[in-house]
């Protein structure tokens, strides 16, 4: 899984019918040191994430392994909202700080 921050949502009216009713999020990839990377993905939400949330997203065929995305044309799904993480014992990110 890769780390990213939800920076917005995506509205799409004309789309594959199998994507109807799915919430699309715009996610900016972040490094493990919490630095934004100039790379963005559109991902289907499976955990009620919203703008500002730090999230983990799964890519590839794994993204279809949810009840929301099974058998649908989707290659990225937000599967967790991150509260905090540490690296080598040092706290890097704290959601509630």
């Amino acid at each position, binding site marked *: *899984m*890769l*780390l990213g921050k939800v920076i917005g949502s995506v509205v799409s009216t004309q789309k594959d019918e199998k994507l109807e009713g799915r919430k699309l999020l715009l996610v900016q990839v972040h*490094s*493990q040191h919490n630095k934004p990377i100039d790379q963005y993905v559109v991902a289907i939400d*499976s*955990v*009620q*994430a919203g703008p500002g949330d730090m999230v*983990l997203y*799964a*890519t*590839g*065929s*794994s*993204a279809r*392994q*949810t009840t929301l*995305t099974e058998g649908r044309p989707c290659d990225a*799904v937000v*599967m*967790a*909202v*991150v*509260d*905090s*993480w*540490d*690296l*080598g*014992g040092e706290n*890097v990110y704290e959601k509630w700080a």
Partner: protein
Amino acid sequence: MYLARVTGRVVATQRYTGLEGVALQWIQPLDEDAKPMGDPLVACAAISSGPGDLVMFVDGREAALACPTTFVPVDAAIVGFVEQAVSKGAIIGRGALERA
């Protein structure tokens, strides 16, 4: 499967149903000389690994098969400790032994 070093831990309470109780850890993939190769990623830990451990991980759809519930959106999973690995005749890592 690939070699990697566990570098950190991730806390996430709001997660996809079926992933409850699964540990999420930062890993740094390693090359044949045990040097960092490519970008770090977060993987589900199917074993009781922790920061500093030398491990192997699987990526892609198969990673979900290492989780307690297998129909989950997981694309990387730690599946084993590496006690020792030999590359080109040289020992490149001694995970558990190194810490002892």
